[in-house]
């Protein structure tokens, strides 16, 4: 009896030993930043000194139209880019999954390829291709599609389009692979049965394929919304820190600028990051509930 207890204690100690290194790093680089942010959020930095201002940073935020604009842009990119990308990825996955067996591997590889590039590389490439006198404008002019060059990077509307294009190019193939795996796990006998019952291809898609893909689509939506809420690399490089004139300013770029670029106001930047965390948390909660409900069924 005594010996068995000792052995259990040894196993328990070994369990803690296994997770200890990760826990130390977790405490240093996750828990400590979270706890110390409670201090920063109540302070206002001026040069090297800082003073306690309580909830002053949140009051300031309520009057900061650029921050509100930045949050609105995050939502705009979410509403426009994610449905567009999921739609494209779904169409491509369904097309790839039907026939064309010989080319399937090559086509899937080609369409997935953008996912090997970093967001920095995507931003650099798109910024060069989309210059006023760059490749895309030149090609479109010589094809008589447009008369004068489009300001992809310096018009406030087209700059937003550029960000959406870059994100869609980078992520569509990536999401398509998820959908393909989802499609391939569908039992082909279901379709054969539907065929026997005389269901059309379109009917089969909407009543069999789509419902079975809902969990995968939700998963894509969850990861994409959290990614879009953090959108930083593209607006920071592709359109010069949210330019032109804040047209592509996102929350992350604005926080970065406040803390590290323009005025080193760590307190205000932390307060704004709380809003981003709050929004991400609400999204994650809602989406997890949706995913959980699907699984429970």
């Amino acid at each position, binding site marked *: 009896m005594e010996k068995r207890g000792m052995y259990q204690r040894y196993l328990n100690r070994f369990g803690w030993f296994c997770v200890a*290194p990760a826990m130390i790093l977790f405490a240093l680089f996750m828990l400590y930043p979270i706890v110390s942010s409670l201090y920063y959020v109540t302070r206002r930095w001026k040069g090297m000194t800082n003073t306690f201002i309580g909830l002053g940073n949140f009051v300031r935020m309520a009057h900061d139209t650029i921050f509100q604009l930045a949050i609105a842009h995050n939502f705009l990119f979410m509403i426009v880019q994610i449905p567009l990308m999921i739609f494209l990825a779904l169409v491509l996955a369904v097309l790839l999954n039907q026939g064309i067996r010989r080319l399937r591997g090559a086509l899937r590889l080609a369409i997935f390829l953008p996912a090997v590039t970093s967001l920095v590389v995507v931003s650099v490439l798109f910024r060069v291709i989309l210059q006023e006198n760059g490749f895309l404008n030149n090609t479109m002019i010589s094809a008589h599609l447009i008369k004068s060059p489009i300001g992809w990077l310096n018009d406030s509307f087209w700059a937003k389009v550029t960000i959406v294009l870059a994100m869609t190019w980078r992520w569509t193939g990536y999401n398509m692979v*998820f959908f393909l795996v989802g499609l391939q796990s569908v039992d082909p006998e279901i379709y054969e049965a539907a065929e026997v019952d005389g269901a059309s291809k379109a009917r089969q898609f909407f009543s069999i394929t789509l419902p079975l893909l809902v969990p995968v689509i939700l998963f894509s939506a969850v990861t994409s919304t959290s990614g879009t809420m953090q959108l930083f690399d593209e607006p920071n490089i592709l359109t010069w820190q949210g330019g032109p004139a804040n047209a592509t300013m996102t929350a992350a770029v604005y926080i970065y600028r406040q803390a590290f670029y323009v005025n080193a106001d760590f307190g205000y930047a932390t307060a704004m990051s709380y809003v981003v965390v709050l929004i991400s948390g609400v999204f994650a909660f809602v989406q997890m509930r949706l995913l959980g409900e699907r699984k429970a069924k």
Partner: protein
Amino acid sequence: MSMVRKWSAGRILALFVLLAAAAVSVFPFIWMVIGTTLNPNDVLRGILAPGRDFASNWVKATENYNLPLFFFNSLKIAVLTVVFGLVVNGLAAYGFEKHRSKARDKVFGVLLLTLIIPQIALVIPMFRMFAFFKLLDTHAAIVLPSIMSAFIIFFMRQNFKMFPTEIMEAARVDGAGEMGIFLRIVTPSMQATYASAAIYLFLGQWNSYLWPLITVLSDAKKTLPIAMASMMNAYTIEYGALMVIVCISVLPVLVLFLSMQKQFVAGLLGSIK
């Protein structure tokens, strides 16, 4: 299913859509490879025929912009992150899954909860912390915070679930120690999991931008993404040399992807199993 199918209008349209998507996806790669052989003006205009300026672009990239240094900085940081990351996260995932206890399950719950916190919310206190310890502008500042990953621990734990506990019990009966069981019995049969985790860690660090942007202050410590981004801020941009650097920065990931497609995709899909 029949072997011979009619080329109906629908199938031709489907093939056309797929080919168009593939062309749009691949084009920037071809364009950037050709760009390495062009002079800056032709890169910008988007000439699609190879030029003769590869040698001079390469010299500019390596001498004016110190490409080898940035490449080895990036490589060193990524490799260190992978090595430490596999050890720390693998061990933790094993501990959470195969040595379960109520307390450790609670810790794991907290760990997963922090996955929703965006990086931008953590970098400010982290920057102050590294500044306090005088560790800004070091590669340690980039490696240390990226070793532990709640996502990797979650992913590896999912895979450790599939390892039969009976085998561990049998080894215990034979008198094997716990560390020996982990190192000699469990780890060797988890190679695919470790490979996926390694790819995921490597990609995350090789491509990381925000945190290095904040901590790297001097040219000597720059990684490839930071070097590329700061080239874009210059008054005159050497597009030819830029394309060389872009190609070199994409190359390792491309090689990794083409040679280990299965583990690569498994790493991406790990989270939805």
